[in-house]
C-alpha cells in the first residue's frame, strides 16, 4: 500500500463521521458549557468558604461536615423535604391510580374528566401557589366553608404543624393528574382477556386488582414513584410563593434553604447543600435503574 492510499482511507473514515458529530455538536457543546462546567465549578465552590465577592478560601469538606453537625436548620430542611415527599408520593400516585381505574370503566366524556385532572399539571407552580395562598387565607374560601359547617378556622399557613401539609395538598392537587394519565394508558393496554378469564375463575374485583392489575403496572408504578420522588425532593416554587420557608422553618425545604444561603452570600455552603441533594437523587436514580432491570 502506498502512503497516499492509507491517508486516503483514513480521510474517508473521518468523513463518514462528520455528519453524526455535527448533529450532536450543538447539544454536546451546550451540555458541556451549561451543565457540565457549572457542575464542576459548583463542586469546587462547595469545598470553599466563598461569598462571591471575596476570594474563595479552601476548607475541604468542612461545609458538608458543618451541615450535618452544626446546622439545625439544614437537618430540619432535610426532614421537611422528606416528609413532603412522603406525603406527596403516598397520596398522589394513589389518587392517580384510583382515578385512572374509574376512568377505565368505559365511561363517556372520558376526555372531559381527564382534562379536569390534568389542567393543574399544565399550570405553573407559581400560579398554583398564588391561587392556593388566597384559598388558604384566614378569611379565604376554605375557612369560610369550614365556618359554614361550624368548624373553627384553620391557620393553614401560619400553624407550624399544618403549614407543610397545606403546601403538600396544593402540590398534590397540581401533580396527581400526571399519574392519572399515565396509569390510564397503562391500564388500557392490559388485555381484557386476563380479566375475563379471572372472572370466569370466580375472582372478585379486589382479587382481579391484586393479581392482574398491579403486576401489569409494576414498571409504570416504579417509573411514577422514582420520577415523582426525584421531582418532589426539589420542591421550591411553592414554598417561595406561599410561605417563605416559615412559619418557624416548618416549610423550609432543601432547595429553599439552598436558595436562602445563596441570598446570604454563602455560595460555598449553598453549593454543598446542592451536592447533598444531588447525592440523594443519585441514590434514588440507581434504585430505579435496579428496579427497571429486573424483568
Amino acid at each position, binding site marked *: 500500500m502506498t502512503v497516499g492510499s492509507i491517508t486516503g482511507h483514513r480521510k474517508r473514515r473521518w468523513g463518514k463521521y462528520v455528519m453524526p458529530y455535527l448533529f450532536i455538536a450543538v447539544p454536546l457543546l451546550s451540555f458541556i458549557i451549561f451543565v457540565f462546567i457549572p457542575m464542576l465549578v459548583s463542586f469546587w465552590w462547595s469545598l470553599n468558604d466563598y461569598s462571591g465577592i471575596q476570594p474563595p478560601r479552601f476548607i475541604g469538606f468542612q461545609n458538608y461536615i458543618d451541615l450535618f453537625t452544626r446546622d439545625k436548620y439544614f437537618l430540619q430542611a432535610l426532614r421537611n423535604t422528606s416528609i413532603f415527599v412522603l406525603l406527596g408520593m403516598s397520596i398522589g400516585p394513589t389518587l392517580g391510580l384510583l382515578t385512572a381505574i374509574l376512568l377505565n370503566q368505559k365511561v363517556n366524556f372520558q376526555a372531559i374528566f381527564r382534562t379536569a385532572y390534568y389542567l393543574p399539571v399544565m399550570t405553573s407552580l407559581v400560579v398554583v401557589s398564588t391561587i392556593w395562598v388566597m384559598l388558604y387565607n384566614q378569611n*379565604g374560601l376554605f375557612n369560610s366553608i369550614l365556618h359554614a359547617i361550624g368548624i373553627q378556622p384553620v391557620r393553614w399557613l*401560619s*400553624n407550624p404543624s399544618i403549614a407543610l401539609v397545606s403546601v403538600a395538598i396544593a402540590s398534590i392537587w397540581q401533580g396527581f393528574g400526571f399519574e392519572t394519565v399515565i396509569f390510564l394508558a397503562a391500564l388500557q393496554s392490559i388485555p381484557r382477556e386476563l380479566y375475563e378469564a379471572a372472572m370466569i375463575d370466580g375472582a372478585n374485583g379486589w382479587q382481579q386488582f391484586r393479581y392482574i392489575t398491579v403486576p401489569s403496572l409494576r414498571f409504570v408504578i416504579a417509573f411514577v414513584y422514582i420520577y415523582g420522588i426525584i421531582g418532589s425532593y426539589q420542591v421550591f416554587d411553592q414554598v417561595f410563593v406561599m410561605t417563605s420557608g416559615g*412559619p418557624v422553618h416548618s416549610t423550609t425545604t432543601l432547595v429553599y434553604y439552598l436558595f436562602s444561603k445563596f441570598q446570604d452570600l454563602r455560595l460555598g455552603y449553598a453549593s454543598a447543600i446542592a451536592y447533598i441533594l444531588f447525592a440523594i437523587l443519585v441514590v434514588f436514580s440507581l434504585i430505579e435503574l435496579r428496579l427497571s432491570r429486573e424483568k
Partner: protein
Amino acid sequence: MRINKVLIGMLLIMSFVLGACGSGAQQPAASNEKVTITVWDYYGEATPIKPLIEGFQKENPNITVQYEALDWDTTLEKLNVVTTGGTPPDVVTTDMTWIPKFAALGGFTDLKPLSGGKLNGEAWDQAYTPGGLEAITYKDQIVAALYDFDVYALYYRADLLEQKGLQVPKTWDELKDVSLKLAEGDKYLYQWGADTFHGSQWIYENGGDLLSADNKTVVFNSPEAVAATQTYLDLLTNKSAIYWGADQGERIQGIKDGRIAMFSDGPYNMGIMKSAAPEMAGKWKVALHPYGKQPGSYLGGTGLAIPAQAKQKEAAWKFIEYAMRVENQIGVYTYAGAAPALTAALQSPEVNVADPYFGGQKPFDVFLEAMKTAKHFPYVRQWNDIDVAFSTAMEQIGLGQKPVKDALDEAAAIATDALSK
C-alpha cells in the same frame, strides 16, 4: 450540497449567539464623555427617585440615567446575584438591614473618598443626626448615603380611643390596659409582629440589647430581654393582640377591615395607608411607642449605595448628591410619604406639616423623637444568622410553641455559634 446547508445553518446560529456577547460592555468614562448610569429603585409606585431623573439629566447632559423599578425583595435578590459576579447597578436603594452583609464583604464603595468628605458642600456629620451617620458607617467607611430613615412608633385608632374615653398609652402597663379595652373579639387588636424589628423594640424599651456593645456577645436572652418579650407575649395571651402570620394577608388589609387597631411601624407606612386606605383618613394617629424603662426602636431606612464593582462611580455619586439636595430630599415625603434622612429636609416646613390624614398632627415630630433613641442592628457579617435565630424564636414564642426564656436561650445558642465562625 446538503452538508453545506446544515453547516452554514449551524455556523450562522453559533455566530449569532457568540457575536452578540460583549454588546453591553461599558467603557470607563472621561469626565465629559457620555456615560450611562443604572439606577435600581425599590420604592415602587410612589417613588421619590424617578421624578429626579429629568432634572438630573438636564443638569448633567453627558449622563443618561437608565432607571429600573423593582420591589424590595427583588432588589435584594438581584443585588445578591450581581455582587457575586455580574453587572451591578451604579446606584441602588439599599435597606439598612442589608448593610451588615454587603459592607462586611466589601460590597459597597466607600463614599468618603468619592465625596471628598462633603455631601453637597456640607460635612457628613453636619448633614445627618449622629444616629443617622452612625447607621451608614461601617468600620470607618461611609457605605451609603442615608436617604430615608425608618424608626418604629405606635400607630393607633385615635377615633376608637376617643370613643371609649381612653388616653394614648405611654407605658407598657397603659398599653396593656388600652389594648384590652379596645379589643372586641377578633377586631381592634394590637398587631403582633413576630420578627426582629418588633422583638428588638421591646427589648430596647427595657434597657436590653441584641448584642453587647462590642458585638461579641449575644445578650438578647438577658433577664431584661426575657422580661420585655414576656410583656409583649402577654398582649397575645390576653387576646388583645393578633398574631400576624402569612395567612393573615397584608397588614393594610387588617387596617382596612378593622382587625388591627394598633401597630408599631415606621414613617413609610404613612404613605401606604394614604394610598391604599384613604377611607381611614382622620381615624389614625401616631405616638411614641409605649415603653418599659426607656423609649426604644430599631433604626433603619433606605440608603443610596454604589456597589463596589459599579462601572460609573463618579457619575453615580453625582446622582446621589443630587438626590440628597434639600429640595429633593423633601420629595421623599411628598412622593413616598416617608421620612427624609437629611436633617435640614426633616425640619423644613414642607415636610414637618400637620397631616390631615393623621388628624392634623405633625407625625414627623413623633418619628424624630423616636429617632433619638433608635438603634441600628449590629453590623456583623453573621447578622443574617443571628436575625434568623432571633426571629425564629419570636415566631415560636408568638405561636405558643415554647416559653419565652427557652426560645430565646435556644436562639442565643445558635447566634453565639454563628458569631464564633
